[in-house]
């Protein structure tokens, strides 16, 4: 461990003020990777441009609008709208503008199709909240200006396609009127607005599309009421269900006259099926209803005569209609059959004739088809060809054409819920999975190229080859563990309930697994994944086992629904087992103990405050019993502003008695006054954080002892008024209080109030300090504060004589029940940007200095040295303090562009930053996720324990050669001289 002693020396060197993270442009992609996603597609519109590259414009559940290349699935451009700016509809106007309606129909934007530049933006208001519709008629003109028809917030607008001007508007103010459809019959200047009023009234308005004049208003009442949506079967007929869901109402309003017909579903299908729902479709003449088990397609013939055309129990997905000629409409239908999906394209008026019938092999891990979008093209023989875009259960997007998957996008990765890591297998015979081993010739060629490069003899093509070789180095993407611990698997859980394993070397998907336990079932109606935990991390005596992760999920959105556990092998990506629990999961506490097979003990707290121990083995139980009295945890009740501490009491009593169930007791509670404080953030230290030293040597040879406790909790509360957005409160009415609470005793160790400040608060806790970010209303800037906490009870151990004579108290046991003598130091600084996430680097042994990773509002990640947030900073540090590395105090924290770890990239929609230590002490792995993914390696104090990537081996070689040559030359010289000497 010669390196060990070398550290301190090097650390002094690295404490210069220059940005520590910095990258040359040609190093991009060497250690980092960036992946762009869009999220689960809600709506897709194909661009019908004849010339140029084929595109499809999509809107997604992540509020992204994007233009994709239809040939390869790449993103041409993309925009992420705000979190509240949910997209209601998209369409293409005039063949060159993408029109989006968002924010509940109140913002209409137009984007240039080729480059994604926003062209105009209009704000649409209205009298009341309603459904919103966006229609782009092809033939409706208004002074040579194409018109968009938008219904939103109870108002109908006609809007110019060129500049977004509102041409006319018409309010529908009737109190109870609920719009269901807005219809533009082709070839006329009329708009039909149909809807329900007062639950049982059907209303139809006919409006002149030229000026918004109301031409006709008809209504009819239906005593049985309505339920759910309506389906439009022709421009003058809609189908609805009555309130019981068993009678179909066919309502037609030809020439402004409302007529209707009622058909009980039982007349159409013999066996009664229970309540049905209408699946909205835009295919004329056909609609579908769905009951629990069956999907039924029904055709409308003439005036309200219904006929069942197909009944299926398979999972089915239908596309919207696509008009392929004047009077013909086609649509696509997808049915599942074990490992295949069957795609059929039919004409609307001819159910039995198929235009196209294809079967495509589908990976089972993609689940069911959720959405289908159809598009046609003209083949060389002038017949129609069809391609369909399908959205799967795992949120992936695939393009099918001619019975094949042309491309696929793993857009489930845009909504990551939780991340953990796993080690790769150790390299052994037969274990290596790397397929890209070079043969000898290629290896030699590569090295020749590199040599050329370093000797500056390479041509531009050679340089490009070298660069691509560096990026694709097989070394970093191998499937085995490496010495430095750079290669790992990132296990991510997505909102779709799918697990992905990503390789840290190049970000590729090693395996993916759609959790079976997260499938809908009768017992579990709407399962959602919650968290990932490392279940088994084998080392020592369980080396042959594969590591596994624990996925905790529950059956519904509320916290008292029962939980589901699944255990997944991280090498193979197979589910080992899954457990449906009979209790809820409110809190999961990974305990710092493992059993004989290295399975980590977890304590699950249910809604009735019982604690359940997993794994349910006797070995685990005996370990747990030993530590029974040492287990404490806390819970935060946001609503009531209470923080409680808990401990275990005894075995469960009552009927659920089970060896692994325990009763709990409340130890303490901290109640925040609800009229003046509302908790908005709680942060603790990371469980696996390593602290290298407790002592901190300060300038004048003095020692301070860090107060290091795993049981410290940082809580931030704000005035209830100030919990809203910025600008909603004056500085006098708002304050922010920060607490440090000991979670074993409930003792408040520190409390500080920031007057005139408000949230949101982003905080990170590490070692003995906490850094938090909040908004200062007086200065109207963001601020960051640091609190460091030191242990005073050890302060008198500084005397060397005491240490020598053994009279120190360093070995005395620490108990949290004795009142700790702590002092805190804090300081605040301005910071320019809003934050979305904050994290801190973590290294294997905790020796390397720390950096804060700030996810800014611009979706970049900035690395900021912890030394800038040191409460001991002063305006004029003394010489000693300067030597120690204390930076003169400045009002605001510096933003050095070179220390953006994401360099010139954006992690669009950034949500979280995760840091994982590598085995090499200097290096930490950083994974940032949002809609995009970004991964890189960071060395907060530079790579002092390994050679940098740009180390010049050539120079080293040249020097050695030169030295050897010089030795021989001097030897010859000295030899000759000696000879001459002898002759003399």
């Amino acid at each position: 461990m010669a390196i060990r002693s070398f550290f301190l020396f090097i650390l002094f060197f690295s404490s210069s003020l220059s940005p520590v993270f910095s990258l040359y442009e040609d190093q991009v992609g060497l250690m980092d990777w960036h992946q762009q996603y869009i999220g689960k597609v809600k709506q897709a519109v194909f661009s019908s441009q004849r010339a140029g590259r084929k595109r499809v414009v999509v809107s997604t559940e992540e509020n992204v609008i994007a233009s994709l290349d239809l040939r390869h699935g790449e993103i041409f451009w993309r925009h992420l709208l705000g979190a509240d700016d949910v997209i209601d509809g998209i369409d293409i106007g005039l063949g060159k503008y993408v029109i989006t309606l968002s924010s509940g129909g109140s913002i209409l934007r137009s984007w240039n199709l080729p480059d994604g530049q926003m062209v105009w933006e209009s704000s649409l208001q209205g009298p009341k909240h309603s459904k919103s519709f966006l229609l782009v008629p092809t033939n409706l003109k208004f002074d040579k200006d194409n018109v968009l028809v938008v219904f939103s917030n109870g108002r109908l607008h006609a809007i110019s396609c060129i500049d977004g001007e509102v041409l006319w508007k018409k309010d529908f103010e009737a109190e109870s009127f609920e719009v269901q459809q807005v219809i533009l019959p082709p070839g006329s200047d009329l708009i039909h607005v149909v809807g329900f009023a007062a639950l049982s009234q059907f209303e139809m308005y006919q409006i002149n599309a030229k000026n918004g004049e109301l031409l006709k208003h008809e209504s009819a009442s239906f005593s049985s009421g309505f339920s759910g949506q309506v389906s439009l079967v022709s421009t003058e007929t809609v189908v609805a269900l009555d309130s019981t869901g068993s009678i179909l109402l066919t309502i037609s309003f030809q020439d402004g006259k409302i007529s209707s017909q009622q058909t009980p579903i039982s007349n159409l299908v013999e066996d009664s099926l229970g309540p049905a729902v209408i699946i909205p479709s835009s295919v004329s003449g056909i609609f579908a209803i769905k009951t629990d088990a069956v999907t039924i397609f029904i055709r409308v013939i003439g005036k309200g005569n219904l006929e069942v055309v197909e009944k299926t129990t398979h999972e089915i997905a239908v596309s919207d209609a696509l008009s392929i000629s004047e009077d013909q409409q086609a649509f696509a239908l997808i049915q599942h059959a074990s490992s295949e999906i069957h795609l059929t394209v039919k004409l609307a008026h001819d159910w039995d004739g198929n235009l196209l019938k294809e079967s495509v092999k589908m990976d089972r891990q993609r689940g069911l088809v959720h959405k289908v979008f159809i598009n046609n093209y003209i083949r060389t023989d002038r017949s129609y060809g069809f391609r369909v875009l399908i959205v799967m259960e795992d949120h992936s997007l695939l393009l099918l054409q001619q019975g094949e998957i042309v491309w696929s996008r793993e857009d489930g990765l845009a909504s990551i819920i939780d991340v953990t890591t796993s080690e790769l297998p150790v390299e052994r015979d037969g274990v290596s999975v790397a397929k890209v081993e070079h043969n000898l010739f290629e290896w030699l060629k590569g090295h020749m190229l590199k040599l050329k490069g370093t000797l500056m003899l390479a041509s531009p093509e050679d340089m490009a080859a070298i660069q691509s070789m560096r990026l694709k180095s097989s070394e970093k993407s191998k499937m085995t563990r490496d010495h430095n611990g750079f290669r790992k698997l990132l296990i991510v859980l997505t909102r779709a309930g799918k697990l992905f394993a990503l390789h840290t070397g190049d970000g590729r998907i090693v395996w993916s697994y759609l959790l079976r336990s997260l499938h809908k079932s009768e017992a579990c109606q709407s399962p959602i994944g919650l968290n990932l935990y490392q279940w088994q991390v084998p080392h020592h005596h369980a080396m042959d086992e594969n590591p596994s992760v624990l996925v905790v999920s529950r059956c519904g959105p509320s916290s008292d629904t029962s939980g589901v556990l699944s255990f997944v092998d991280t090498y193979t990506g197979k589910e080992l087992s899954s457990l449906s629990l009979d209790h809820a999961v409110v809190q999961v506490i990974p305990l710092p103990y493992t059993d004989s097979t290295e399975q980590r003990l977890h304590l699950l707290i249910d809604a009735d405050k019982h604690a359940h121990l997993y794994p349910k083995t006797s070995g685990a139980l005996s370990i747990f019993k030993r530590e029974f009295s040492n287990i404490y945890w806390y819970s935060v009740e946001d609503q009531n502003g209470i923080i409680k501490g808990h401990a275990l009491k005894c075995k469960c009593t009552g009927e659920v008695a089970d060896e692994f169930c325990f009763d709990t007791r409340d130890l303490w509670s901290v109640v925040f006054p609800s009229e003046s404080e509302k908790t908005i953030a709680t942060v603790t230290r990371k469980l696996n954080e390593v602290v290298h030293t407790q002592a901190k040597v300060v300038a004048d040879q003095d020692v301070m002892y860090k107060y290091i406790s795993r049981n410290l909790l940082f809580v931030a509360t704000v005035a209830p008024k100030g919990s809203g957005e910025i600008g909603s409160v004056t500085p006098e009415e708002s304050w922010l209080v920060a607490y440090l609470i000991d979670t074993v005793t409930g003792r408040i160790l520190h409390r500080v109030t920031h007057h005139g400040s408000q949230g949101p608060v982003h905080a990170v806790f590490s070692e003995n300090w906490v850094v938090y970010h909040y908004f200062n209303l007086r200065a109207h800037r963001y601020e960051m504060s640091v609190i460091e906490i030191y242990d005073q009870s050890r302060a008198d151990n500084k005397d060397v004589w005491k240490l020598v004579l053994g009279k120190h108290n360093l070995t005395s046991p620490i108990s949290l029940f004795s009142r700790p003598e702590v002092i805190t130091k804090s300081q605040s600084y301005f910071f320019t940007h809003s934050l979305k996430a904050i994290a801190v680097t973590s290294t294997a042994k905790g020796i390397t200095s720390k950096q804060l990773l700030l996810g800014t509002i611009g979706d970049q990640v900035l690395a900021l040295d912890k030394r800038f947030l040191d409460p001991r900073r002063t305006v004029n540090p003394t010489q000693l303090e300067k030597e120690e590395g204390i930076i003169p105090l400045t009002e605001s924290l510096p933003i050095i562009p070179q220390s953006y770890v994401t360099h010139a990239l954006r992690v669009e929609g950034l949500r979280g930053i995760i840091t994982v230590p590598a085995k090499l002490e200097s290096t930490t792995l950083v994974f940032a996720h949002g809609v995009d993914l970004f991964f890189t390696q960071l060395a907060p104090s530079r790579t002092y324990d390994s050679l940098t990537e740009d180390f010049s081996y050539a120079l080293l070689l040249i020097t050695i050669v030169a030295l050897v040559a010089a030795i021989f030359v001097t030897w010859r010289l000295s030899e000759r001289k000696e000879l001459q000497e002898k002759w003399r």
Partner: protein
Amino acid sequence: MAAVTPLLLLLLLSSAPSFSSGSRNAYNINGRVKIPQGLGLGTKGYALPGRMSNVKVLLNGGQNITFLRPDGYFSFHNIPAGTHLIEVSAIGYFFSPVRVDVSARTPGKVQAALTENRKGLSELVLEPLREEQYYEIREPFSIMSLLKSPMGLMVGFMLAVAFLMPKLVENMDLEEMRRAQEEMRSQGVPSLSSLLPGGAMN
């Protein structure tokens, strides 16, 4: 905290007294982002990845997000009266956040100031304070940098010893040198040649 510059000038801005029930005090904020031409093209062919279409304007830490029109104008709709914060996110540029006061008493008047340097804005025209270089610039190959590297120093030192030392020795007094040489011989200090393999053969 120094007093905020009193130079906050009044700003344009159309108020939109709203028609709807809930939001009686809703206003619009209109402004413009201006990125000076030529600012982006300066340094060493460093291509700016961010174009105008990738610029975002954010209100109150992401509560509302809007984009720029081709001429750089942007607007936020239905904003309640109060003090707000506007941030501009553009790759390659550093923008100061802007404090914007939307007044309820005098509808439609907006005051703005940069929060970084507390400079008042007479119009809501946002310009970058500076460009951001995300990459280090690789220094071109030079002899000096080669010489300054540890290897260079090593070679330099060796050369100095090999060629300057004899010179120094030459300048010594002949008598003295001979005496020194004899001394060395008598002590049997091995010469360099005898140290090397093969050198010992002589």
